[in-house]
Structures are given as structure tokens and as C-alpha cells.
């Protein structure tokens, strides 16, 4: 049966003037990546995330395609070849083989990517709308993924290529195959706008990967995490984002999950830096059992603060301050634990043990003073005349009483005192103490207090040092 070839009268699909909406998007250039086999949505998402470094306009085409609008990216990356190469690399990183095609409309790009290779040309590439219909014409109709019965009925009339269907009269096509088919063809050639929903960046990064064999030592885990961290970096780069914290969960075949939490002193995105810190942390982590799966969960993304290069060389004028301190603090925290690396701040309080607080290093004094927790009520500076020791015991040490004064490595000798500190009634932890400065037999000056309440116990609270 001969194909239906219109001679005159009804206008074929391919020759319709552009409506305004479609014309606005006429400058677009779509790059489609077609996977050789249907893939789960999560894999497409990972590919889309990896493609995010090329353009923010990425959309998914389940079950086996990803679409990128790349007109603006061509100049940035230096041409079609460079962009295609970048997308292929992204595909390899995710672990998929992709076939690419470029066209001015999304559907045409997808059709081109799905079509089998033609001789002498590896990529279906149409840069301008004027060439689109001609380039699509020889492609088999199947690549459009029209409904089965439409394809079947068209085949019965001898229509098997896209060119043939585009030459059919519009009115007849709409009547016999439904308006959806006509709309699809209009979108294919760009006569109708084809808006796409872009993949929105996820706020957090989460990835779980299972090795093909169980990981038993730190080195194997670090090696297994390296590509995962590289993927994290690509994810962050695609969003111009950084993270302040990352949790690495090591899943075992049974039993509780081993968690390694990293908190960074500054927004971080570089895989190498994160990997180094994670390695430090893993080196001190005891593994109860072999690791069957690794999971990375990031904190919320924060926007990237681009670092400006220092004006001074590291040796000059302390020009290195901004960079070394966070690195040092992160290294210490990763190895020793967060709670063991801290800064100091003042709290206006008369109880010595509450007159200061530990703060996360690198937090400013101002924020520390407003920190949540017990809000200081007592105001005003400490009395200027009071002697205060440079060292404080974190918990006062109970001292045995002597004849008059208590003992600490022998009898103590009073140098000054008493100074009464009586405060804190408002929060139930009120103290009523008489403080003395005393000297031990080894000539160490000590800060000792006696409870005013019975049994009038003695405590060592500080060392003058």
C-alpha cells in the first residue's frame, strides 16, 4: 500500500507557522542521553545530578533518558564536542553507557538518541530548526514512542518513518489517530512549545552503595568511599553548594550501624579534603563487624562562598590565618572527637564554674555569649579586687579537714580569704561558699572553698598556677 501523500489543500504537519510560545523557546538546543536499557529512577537521578555541572536545566525522561538544555553551555565549555564528552564522562562515573543526540526540540533530541546509529555519524546532531524535519525524516517511527495501536495502524497504511507521518494532512491525522498524536508531532518539530520540568537540586546529599564483597579494614572502606565522595563533590559543584557536616554510615550484615559524623569548621565541598578527614576519623573508629554497605548523608547545602586568594604570602604579616586555622581545627576534631576541641568564652556569672563556657572553636565571642542553654542572669563584671586562679578543676575535689584548715598533700597554710560567693538561688543550684587562697606544702597556691551549709565540707576548686 502506497503512503498517503498529500498533494494540495490540507497543510502537512511540518509546515505550520510557529506560534509565539514556541518561537520563544526556539533558541533552545537539547541534548538527550539515552541509556541502552531501562534503568531505575534513582540511577537517572544520579545521572541528572552528574549532568548538573553542565547546565541547571536537566530533566528526566524515564525510564531510560535524560534531557539537557545546552545552548548556553556550548560557549562555556567550548563547543558541542566538549559538552558531549562531559556528559559521557558523567555517564561513566555513574556507571551507564549513554547514546547522545542534539536537536532544537526535546522530542527530536530523544528520537535522535533512540535511533540506531547511521553510517559515518555517531551523534544525531541538528543545530538549527530549518534542518530538523529533514534530519528526522529517515528515522523509524518507533523512536517517537507513540502508543502501540497508533504505530500499528500507521504501519498498516505503510507509514514507518517519521518523514512519512509528517507529510500526512493534519486534519485527517487528528481525526484518525487522535489529537494527542498530532500534538506530539507538533512538539517534535517545534510547532508547539514543549516545556520541561527541571530536576530541582536536592537539599541534602544521600547515597548508599553496597560493595560486591564485605569490607573488613579501614583501607578497603576508604578506597570504597573515594568514588562516592567524588560523586558528592560533583553533586555539590552542580549546585554551587557546600556542606557543613557529613555522616558516613557503615552498615553491617547485622547489628547496629556504625556512624562517623564529620563537622566542618567551614563550608566544604572538596572530595579530597573530606576524604582526608573521613580517613582520620575511620582510623580511630572500632568496627564491630565487616561492612556490608556504605551510606553518605550530608547536611543541608549552603551556598558556596568563593574564597579569595590571600594578598600576603604565608610568611608575611600573618597572611595565612584564614586558611590554616579551620584546617587545623578540623584535623584535630576528626582525630580526637568534636567535644575534645573547644574554645573559651565568658558568661557574666559569679559562680566560678558557670562563669565560663566551652564553645565550638571558630565561633565568635558574640554568638557564644548568646548561646542557648542556661541564660546568665547576674550582670556586671567580676569584682576587680578578687583573686582568681588561672586553673579551675572541672569538678571540685573534696579535701579532708584538718585542725583549722583542710589538708591537700599535707596541711595547708592560709594566704587570703575568706571571700564569700553566695548566688544562684534563682535556678536552684545556689552556692554559698567561702573561698580562701591557700598554699600547699609544695608551695602551690590553691583556691579552696568551704560550704556554708553543714557539714561545712572543704573543696579544692582551683590552682593559681
Amino acid at each position, binding site marked *: 500500500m502506497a503512503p498517503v501523500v498529500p498533494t494540495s489543500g490540507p497543510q502537512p504537519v511540518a509546515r505550520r507557522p510557529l506560534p509565539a510560545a514556541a518561537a520563544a523557546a526556539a533558541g533552545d538546543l537539547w541534548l538527550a542521553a539515552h541509556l541502552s536499557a531501562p534503568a531505575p529512577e534513582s540511577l537517572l537521578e544520579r545521572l541528572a545530578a552528574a549532568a548538573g555541572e553542565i547546565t541547571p536545566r536537566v530533566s528526566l525522561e524515564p525510564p531510560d533518558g535524560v534531557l539537557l538544555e545546552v545552548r548556553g553551555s556550548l560557549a562555556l565549555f567550548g563547543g558541542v564536542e566538549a559538552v558531549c564528552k562531559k556528559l559521557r564522562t558523567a555517564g561513566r562515573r555513574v556507571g551507564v553507557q549513554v547514546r547522545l543526540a542534539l536537536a532544537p526540540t526535546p522530542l527530536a533530541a530523544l528520537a535522535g538518541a533512540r535511533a540506531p546509529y547511521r553510517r559515518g555519524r555517531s551523534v544525531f546532531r541538528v543545530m538549527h530548526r530549518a534542518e530538523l524535519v529533514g534530519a528526522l525524516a529517515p528515522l523509524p517511527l518507533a523512536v517517537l514512542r507513540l502508543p502501540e495501536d497508533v504505530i500499528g495502524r500507521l504501519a498498516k497504511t505503510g507509514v514507518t518513518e517519521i518523514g512519512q507521518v509528517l507529510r500526512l494532512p493534519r486534519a485527517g491525522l487528528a481525526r484518525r489517530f487522535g489529537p494527542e498524536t498530532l500534538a506530539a508531532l507538533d512538539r517534535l518539530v517545534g510547532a508547539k512549545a514543549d516545556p520541561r520540568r527541571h530536576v530541582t537540586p536536592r537539599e541534602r546529599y544521600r547515597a548508599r552503595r553496597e560493595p560486591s564483597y564485605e569490607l573488613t579494614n579501614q583501607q578497603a572502606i576508604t578506597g570504597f568511599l573515594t568514588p562516592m565522595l567524588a560523586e558528592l563533590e560533583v553533586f555539590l559543584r552542580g549546585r554551587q553548594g557546600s556542606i557543613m557536616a557529613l555522616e558516613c554510615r557503615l552498615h553491617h550484615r547485622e547489628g547496629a550501624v556504625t556512624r562517623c559524623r564529620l563537622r566542618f569548621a567551614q563550608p566544604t565541598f572538596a572530595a579530597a579534603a573530606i576524604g582526608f578527614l573521613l580517613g582520620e576519623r575511620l582510623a580511630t573508629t572500632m568496627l564491630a563487624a565487616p561492612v556490608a554497605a556504605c551510606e553518605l548523608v550530608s547536611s543541608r547545602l549552603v551556598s558556596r562562598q568563593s574564597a579569595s586568594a590571600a594578598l600576603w604570602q604565608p610568611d608575611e604579616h600573618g597572611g595565612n590565618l584564614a586558611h590554616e586555622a579551620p584546617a587545623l581545627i578540623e584535623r584535630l576534631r576528626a582525630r580526637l572527637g568534636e567535644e575534645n*576541641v573547644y574554645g573559651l568564652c565568658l558568661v557574666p556569672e559569679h559562680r566560678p564554674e558557670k562563669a565560663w563556657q566551652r564553645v565550638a572553636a571558630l565561633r565568635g*565571642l558574640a554568638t557564644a555569649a548568646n548561646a542557648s542553654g542556661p541564660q546568665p542572669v547576674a550582670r556586671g563584671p567580676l569584682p576587680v579586687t578578687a583573686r582568681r586562679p*588561672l586553673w579551675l*578543676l572541672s569538678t571540685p575535689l573534696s579535701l579532708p579537714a584538718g585542725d583549722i584548715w583542710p589538708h591537700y598533700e599535707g596541711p595547708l597554710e592560709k594566704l587570703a580569704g575568706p571571700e564569700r560567693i553566695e548566688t544562684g538561688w534563682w535556678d536552684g543550684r545556689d552556692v554559698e561558699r567561702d573561698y580562701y587562697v591557700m598554699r600547699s606544702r609544695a608551695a602551690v597556691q590553691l583556691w579552696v572553698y568551704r560550704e556554708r551549709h553543714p557539714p561545712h565540707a572543704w573543696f579544692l576548686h582551683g590552682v*593559681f598556677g
Partner: protein
Amino acid sequence: MSVNPRLARLLEHPALWRGRSAARVPTWSTGYPMLDAGLPGGGWPRAGLVEILTPQPGVGELHLLVPALARLTGLTPARWVAWIAPPFEPFAPALAARGVVLDRQLVVRTHLPLWAMEQALGSGACEAALAWAQEARPRDLRRLQLATERGRTLGFVFRNLAAAREASPAELRLSIVPQGEGVEVELIKSRGGSRERIRMEIGGG
């Protein structure tokens, strides 16, 4: 008297050690004129390892450092001061009252004081680092001394007086022993300085 300019230039070189000479090392004043007078260069070296030996912690060694700490945390821009494995909690109100800038202090609790000290000294992030490391061996101190040069940092290591008999690669070693109302500071080792005893009053609340 004219000195050969090439020789003069050579003598200026900081790595060249000249016995009993006025070797010019950049220093921080200790805040105690008597102590400054006894130390080579007139103060704590700006980069180098200082070993402080005491019969027990708390005899006054911290008072000896506090004026210098106040001075160098008041610089702009200020580098950090790291406290590594201190025996007690540094009491922030007392430090602040003596002019030490608190938001440049970093306290590190660890059972690996030597490792943390080497990180702090070598990173370049700290102006000074204080470590309480009784078990330091000469080889460890050598590493710390090298780290101070790498990071241009002043490092203090506090140890027991019993270690005075051991050899030490530290640039400066001194012992502090309480004497009556004050302390006696003895310079056990100093480059270009003499082995002398300095009696001084310190602290005073």
C-alpha cells in the same frame, strides 16, 4: 673596625649559631624585665620550642607565660593559642582579666598530646602552643622543635623536673621551683645565654 660585608651577612644568618653571641632571634617580651634580661634575645623566641620543668603543675609556670600570651593574642590579625592536654581547665575569667583574648584560645583534650602539639605547631595557625606532655622523649621534642620552625610558632612543653637530666633538643629549657613568696627560674639550656638562676616574684592574683 670594619667587618668583611660577606662575613657580616653570614653572621646575620638565623641558622648560624654563635656561642655567647648576641644571636639575633626575634622574641616576645615575657613581661618580666628580670626574666627578659636573662633570656637570649630578651624574651621568648617567636619560633622555637621552650621546655618548662616544674616539680609539680601549678607552681607558677602559667603566670610566667600569661603576659606574653596576652600580648600575642592582642595582635591584629592574631593567630591562635592552643592548650594541649592541660592538667585542669583554663579559667577563662582569670585569663580575660589578664588581657588574654579568649576567642583565640583553643583547648584540646587528648591522650595524644605530642601528635596534637605537632599539628598545632606545624600548621601555622597558632602563634603559640602549650602542651603538657610528661612522656615526651628527646626524639619527640626534636620533631616538635622542627614543627615550630615550620609553622613559625612558639611552643611550650611542660614536664616534670625529673626530666632535667635527660638531653633535650629544645631551644630553651628552664626549671621553675617555688622559693618563699616567689619562684626561682633556672636557665638550664639557652642558645647564647648563660646558665643562671633568676629569683622573681610572679602572679599576685
